[in-house]
């Protein structure tokens, strides 16, 4: 980004902030915007013209902001003729963009006559239902919402969007701008075996979040490395014990994918990897076990409920003031800043803590990328078995278009997929403390561009990451088995996984 661009964005953001704080009038704001070269469609102005001042204060976006762009509407109307009345479906986790999209989809239906049913269920159930669909090639779902850990599993079941975009020029949405998707994100998330499995749709990523006030109180600088992080966590636990506060909070629920996410991160941060390049499980080598030991140490400095907590529990720990330092999903951030939150404005975020060194992707197996920022992204894939491929394709392009993605972000304050969304003035305008804040997004963008890690891309990974690994970890962390011996636990996992990999003939 050139200095000039950066300057311009700052200018826009400042103006927007002033406007939402009612320091300047709407006319002045618009004038400044046009100075900055930002054109507003009549619809987008709606968000500024809110009649309720409180709406700006709270969300900076009113319902009018959801109105459809006229060009997009026209395109939708033009291409959807043959598909009027069809209904397309997919099943998804209740991630922020999905929830917002579920609301926005009405616009799409209005313009196209294509109905959209988004079946929202918890993540593992999304997996089970999608798996069932592809196993029987049922075609119940037209799109698949695919978590990054399942992308390889479903690679054979989806249509390559890039190829399809070229193949069907009459259905191609103008201005898709494929290059607008952040490159590391596409590589880490959407691409398997050289082609796109789907379009990136959501990118929660691990950043380091800390309680500014607590750290200041104990004169601790925000940690940059794992060692600093562990030391700070221990210190805070010790110092704040009486106040019911722990150093950190973890998503260590046995048998749950969240625990597996935490684990991969500590393994990578300690220079380990999950697989070696000869496709052997290496979670039991010295580096990985060392990482796990650090995690065991962290668990001692986290609320005991951590062992029964998924991301939900971890978020509640953060929101209720139970912990001060967390290396976890950036998605929590807007919620922490919500009105009524006890910790509004108290959390800050920074790029994730780093280990001393990282194993190079070349030394790891199955396309694994060890790095400081575990990503839990997901993509929308177009089902090969769908009976309404083209209708679904129109929706998918629309859902992943610049406008919609930006507006999804505006509705929830989570990280967008598109560079343009990160830089959208409406997004910038919300970089203030408050519900739906976007003030963490610059850090997230930096993290995506520099620190993004990726779990192995292999068909069996969905199973390992949801069953074998987190179950064994649960046994270890709650004292059911292995007597606290991390190595023993990981040897056990290694035996299971190596056997399964061999059996599958990978």
């Amino acid at each position, binding site marked *: 980004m050139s200095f000039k661009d950066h300057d311009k964005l700052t200018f826009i953001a400042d103006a927007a902030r002033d406007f939402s704080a009612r320091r300047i009038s709407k006319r002045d704001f618009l004038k400044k915007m046009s100075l900055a070269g930002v054109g507003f469609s009549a619809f987008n102005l709606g968000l500024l013209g809110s009649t309720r001042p409180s709406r700006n204060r709270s969300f900076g976006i009113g319902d009018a902001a959801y109105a459809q762009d006229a060009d997009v509407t026209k395109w939708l109307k033009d291409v959807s003729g043959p598909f009027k009345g069809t209904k397309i479906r997919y099943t998804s986790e209740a991630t922020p963009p999905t929830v917002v999209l579920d609301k926005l989809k009405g616009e799409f239906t209005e313009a196209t006559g294509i109905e959209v049913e988004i079946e929202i269920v918890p993540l*593992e159930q999304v997996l089970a239902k999608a798996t069932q669909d592809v196993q029987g090639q049922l075609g119940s779902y037209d799109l698949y919402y695919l978590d990054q850990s399942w992308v390889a599993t479903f690679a054979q079941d989806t249509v390559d969007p890039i190829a399809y975009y070229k193949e069907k020029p009459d259905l191609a949405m103008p201005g898709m701008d494929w290059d607008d998707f952040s490159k590391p994100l596409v590589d880490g998330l959407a691409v398997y075996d050289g082609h796109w499995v789907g379009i990136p749709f959501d990118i929660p990523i691990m950043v380091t979040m800390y309680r500014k006030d607590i750290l200041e109180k104990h004169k601790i600088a925000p940690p940059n490395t794992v060692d600093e992080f562990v030391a700070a966590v221990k210190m805070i636990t010790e110092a704040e014990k009486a106040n019911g506060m722990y150093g950190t909070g973890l998503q260590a629920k046995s048998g749950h994918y969240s625990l597996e996410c935490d684990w991969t991160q500590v393994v990578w941060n300690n220079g380990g990897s999950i697989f070696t390049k000869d496709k052997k499980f290496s979670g039991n080598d010295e580096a990985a076990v060392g990482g796990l030991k650090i995690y065991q140490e962290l668990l001692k400095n986290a609320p005991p409920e951590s062992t029964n907590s998924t991301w939900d529990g971890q978020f509640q720990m953060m929101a209720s003031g139970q912990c001060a330092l967390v290396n976890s999903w950036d998605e929590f951030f807007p919620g922490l800043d919500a009105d009524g939150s006890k910790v509004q404005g108290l959390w800050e975020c920074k790029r994730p803590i780093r280990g001393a060194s990282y194993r190079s992707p070349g030394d790891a197996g199955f396309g694994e990328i060890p790095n400081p920022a575990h990503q839990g992204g997901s993509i929308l894939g177009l089902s090969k078995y769908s009976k309404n491929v083209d209708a679904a394709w129109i929706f998918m392009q629309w859902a992943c278009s610049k406008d919609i993605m930006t507006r999804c972000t505006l509705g929830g304050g989570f990280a967008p997929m598109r560079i343009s969304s990160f830089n959208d003035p409406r997004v910038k305008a919300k970089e203030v403390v408050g519900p739906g804040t976007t003030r963490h997004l610059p850090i997230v963008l930096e993290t995506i561009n520099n620190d993004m890690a990726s779990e192995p891309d292999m068909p069996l990974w969905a199973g390992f990451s949801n069953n074998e690994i987190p179950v064994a970890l649960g046994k270890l962390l709650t004292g059911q088995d292995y007597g606290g011996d991390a190595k023993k636990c990981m040897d056990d996992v290694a035996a299971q996984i190596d056997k399964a990999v061999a059996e599958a003939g990978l």
Partner: protein
Amino acid sequence: MSSNTASLLPRETASPESKRGWLPSWLSSEHPFPWLFPAAALMVVFGIYPLLYALTLSLYKKNAATRKMVFAPDHNWTKILSDERVWNALFNTFLYTGIALVFQLVLGMLIALLLDSDRKGYGILRAMMTLPLVIPPAVTAMMFLLMLNGSFGVLSRGLIAMGLLPTGFSILGNASTAMAGVLLAEIWQWTPFMVLIMLAGLRSLPKEPFEAAAIDGASGVQAFFRLTLPMMSKVIAIAVLIRGIDLFRAFDYVKVMTDSGPGTATETLTSYAGRIYFGNADFPYASTIALLTLIIVIVVSSAFMKAFKVKL
């Protein structure tokens, strides 16, 4: 006399006068067939056919990478024998069923005795007692998940305040206590069902023996053990059977509250099947485990029905 001997109508009931003489006799309303057919059809189409399908499925081996299914009849069934988690789950299932049954039975009986009164207000108490039954188990599980949260849950905090648990202790996040936590939800929800069954039994007991016993000087406790229990034995046996079957297949509580965890501390046969199904998508193996559950339920409950002469 007539009430004991089954009344059997003439076999060829299509009388000369019958207006529907052209119908085959087994289609007339005098023949049991038309009465039994709808339920039988339902069972065959929605029960037995899927079951046979599942049985077939269990004879296939699924390649986790390619998703190809290969016919390998012994693969899953031998795998089950050597799978430690199956044995652990089997143990947990019996533990879960046994403990829940004992608590539900004893509590159910005690509460039924307590609420079995015609005095004013007891009707309302009895109605309130049925409330837990109407909550979806998946929601009950969420409810207890929150109440048992070591940091925020009202039950955990209560126990901690009483000094029974260390600060912040996570009942569900601890291998030694998780089963108790799940059982708490199970027992809370289904004890009322037992209460209903027991109340039904108590209410249909004849009064005379109790009056006689009271005249003979039997205390309430003696009357309970000498009269109530023996006379209720059939009710109790049926209640144990029905509840036992349900408990053996219980899924929602474990799934939502601990997801078989921590580790495999609360993993039951059905929840293990669920993990294999949800997590690994190994449908054949999941089916095999579920079928094993079915086989055990059949064997155990048939043995129970024989042993206790349960007649439906």
